[in-house]
């Protein structure tokens, strides 16, 4: 089958518009080099050697973080910008749902704008006449169609733009993250319209952050990262590869956050500031911010979070094992040591707190280096960012070394449930409840 869209070794280099763009018109004229001056001095490569083909009738998803070149790719396909090198070939009439209602004039009525916008997108007046009612109905603007567009809400504006663009009846539809334009009902309507397009064998190129949509909807997917095609093919595979990379970068973020917090707390502790802070906890523990205090008779020298395989990390999955490993060092042999742990949500809610004294484990003696590990069999927390308190202290609570909210970790989950704690659970149903067959739950 002939491809509907074909990009071959496409690179797009933008020039950066810095302070000195053109010195003046005069200098450009004097050097007689307007065209030469227009050549970029500082450049930014939005796409580097990207190739992909979309067969006719295929729904193709493009994913990637912000600034990865997704929209540039779409603009190249739409023909709005030209590639710096490489070739872009598109077969058939294109309609681009890029900036909805871009051509709308605020002063004139919705009706007139529909006509002008339709003509801009390549329809004839008669074709618009034929489709007019359908367009207005789709946009749900029957009452307001004769009001000037400037009186529309942004949702109405987008809906009208979407309705016109989708009724152009293109062979190739380019969609850039526009499904967020309306309320739930409108989004469903749009998706239905896309499905109809697919059934009729039209080609759709979809740029989106909604990975679920790509998995559900696309036949193929492309993952762009910093202008480079990292992977393409089966959407499920591409999405999971992308998610893994996102996780890795989040992991890095957690690591730096934690490292910075620990470093800051370390600096703050010496020299010990005025009496209460350095050695004693703040008045109200639940309002305390991050920090570190204690006399350091016993010092926590290292805190490591480990996943089920014993690998250190900062990203954990809900329901999977996790352990917190404390390495401590006693300056002098000590016979009164309690290890404590507290887990806090990002809002500062204490999810769980315990210590060895409460659980009636009292080490008789600690000398030199030691390790204590708090192992969680299943991390039954909902998705979110959590902070950790760790401490060694006396039985009466007087701290040796208290690390307050210094460690950050993230729990990920494919279920978007809410709250803090996820009880181990399952659902059962009476047999007369039917579920669609073939839906594999992952």
């Amino acid at each position, binding site marked *: 089958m002939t491809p509907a869209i074909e990009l071959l070794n496409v690179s797009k280099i933008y020039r950066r518009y810095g302070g000195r763009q053109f010195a003046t018109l005069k200098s450009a004229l004097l050097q007689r080099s307007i065209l030469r001056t227009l050549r970029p001095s500082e450049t930014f490569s939005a796409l580097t050697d990207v190739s992909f083909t979309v067969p006719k009738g295929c729904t193709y998803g493009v994913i990637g973080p912000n600034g990865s070149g997704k929209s540039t790719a779409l603009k190249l396909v739409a023909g709005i910008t030209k590639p710096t090198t490489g070739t872009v070939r598109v077969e058939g009439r294109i309609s681009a749902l890029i900036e909805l209602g871009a051509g709308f*004039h605020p002063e004139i009525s919705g009706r007139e704008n529909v006509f002008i916008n339709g003509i801009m997108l390549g329809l004839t007046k008669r074709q618009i006449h034929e489709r007019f009612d359908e367009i207005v109905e789709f946009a749900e603007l029957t009452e307001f169609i004769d009001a000037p567009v400037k009186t529309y809400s942004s949702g109405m504006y987008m809906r009208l733009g979407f309705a016109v663009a989708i009724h152009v009846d293109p062979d190739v539809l380019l969609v850039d993250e526009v499904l967020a334009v309306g309320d739930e009902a409108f989004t469903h309507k749009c998706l239905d319209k896309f499905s109809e397009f697919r059934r009729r064998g039209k080609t759709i190129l979809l740029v989106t952050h909604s990975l679920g949509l790509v998995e559900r909807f696309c036949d193929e997917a492309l993952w762009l990262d910093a202008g480079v095609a990292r992977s393409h093919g089966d959407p499920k595979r591409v999405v999971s590869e992308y998610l893994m990379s996102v996780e890795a970068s989040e992991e890095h973020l957690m690591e730096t956050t934690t490292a910075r917090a620990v470093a800051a707390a370390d600096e703050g502790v010496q020299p010990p500031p005025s009496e209460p802070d350095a050695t004693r906890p703040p008045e109200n523990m639940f309002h305390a911010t991050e920090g570190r205090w204690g006399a350091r008779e016993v010092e926590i020298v290292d805190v490591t979070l480990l996943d089920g395989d014993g690998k250190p990390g900062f990203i954990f999955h809900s329901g999977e094992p996790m352990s917190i490993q404390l390495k401590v060092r006693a300056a002098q042999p000590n016979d009164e040591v309690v290890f404590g742990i507290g887990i806090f949500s990002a809002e500062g809610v204490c999810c769980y707190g315990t210590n060895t004294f409460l659980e009636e484990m009292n080490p008789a003696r600690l000398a030199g280096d030691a390790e204590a590990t708090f192992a969680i069999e299943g991390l039954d927390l909902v998705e979110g960012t959590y902070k950790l308190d760790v401490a060694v202290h006396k039985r009466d609570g007087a701290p040796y070394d208290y690390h307050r909210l210094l460690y950050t970790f993230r729990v990920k989950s494919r279920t978007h449930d809410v709250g803090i704690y996820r009880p181990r659970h399952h659902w059962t149903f009476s047999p007369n409840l039917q579920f669609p067959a073939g839906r594999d739950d992952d």
Partner: protein
Amino acid sequence: MRYRGLIQSLVARDLKARYRGSVLGFFWSFVNPLLLLLVYSFVFSTVMPNTTVGIQPYALFMFCGILPWTWFTASLSEATNSLITGGNLIKKVLFPAEILPIVSVLANMVNFFLGLLILVPGLIYFHKLHLSFNLLWFPVTVLVQLVLTLALGLMLSALTVHFRDIRDLLFNILTLWFFATPIIYSWQQDNVRKYKHLFDLNPFTHLAISYQETLFYGPVGHWKWLLSLGAASVVLFLAGYWLFDRLRDSFAEAV
């Protein structure tokens, strides 16, 4: 032309949108030139009557030049900005950019025709307008001006994307240009004839004279100049289009 429908509806939109929300609406197209006329004829017939001796009625004479001039300047200043104000279209929609300056010129041409609706009754009243073949020069003059304005509009709009200073520069140049053109004074005055060669270099001189001859003075003696200007305008238009086309790809990024 492929985009005729688009240009048509954009011109209509431009005109509609221009006066939407104002009380007088479309009448501003008449009121504006009338007010301008009032100011100039007060200055030149009452304050400084000596400069315009022998041109009667002066207001009518001046109107013949001022109407096309208004078309010219309004077109150029709007066309110059057109790519920047229409940036949304160029950046987000696959849109033939040259349409924007063209629409600016055409919308102002419609305004020019509306202005004629005031001029013509005046001409008839003062028996200046005679039905003769002479009048056939009028559409020719309009056509030459159209081509010239389009040529300049295309060039200026394309260059302004990269050199925003053109907008301010243009404003000053147009003011100067206005006084360098025999519109509020006649080219038949002696002290104008002295500098005939300089005036001949000004393309709008020939347009203004042609308008004044067709509508006010009678027989057209200036047609050689007019036709040469027409030929030059076509060349300029091609050059303007070439320049526009060369810079086209940079618009979406630079706007």
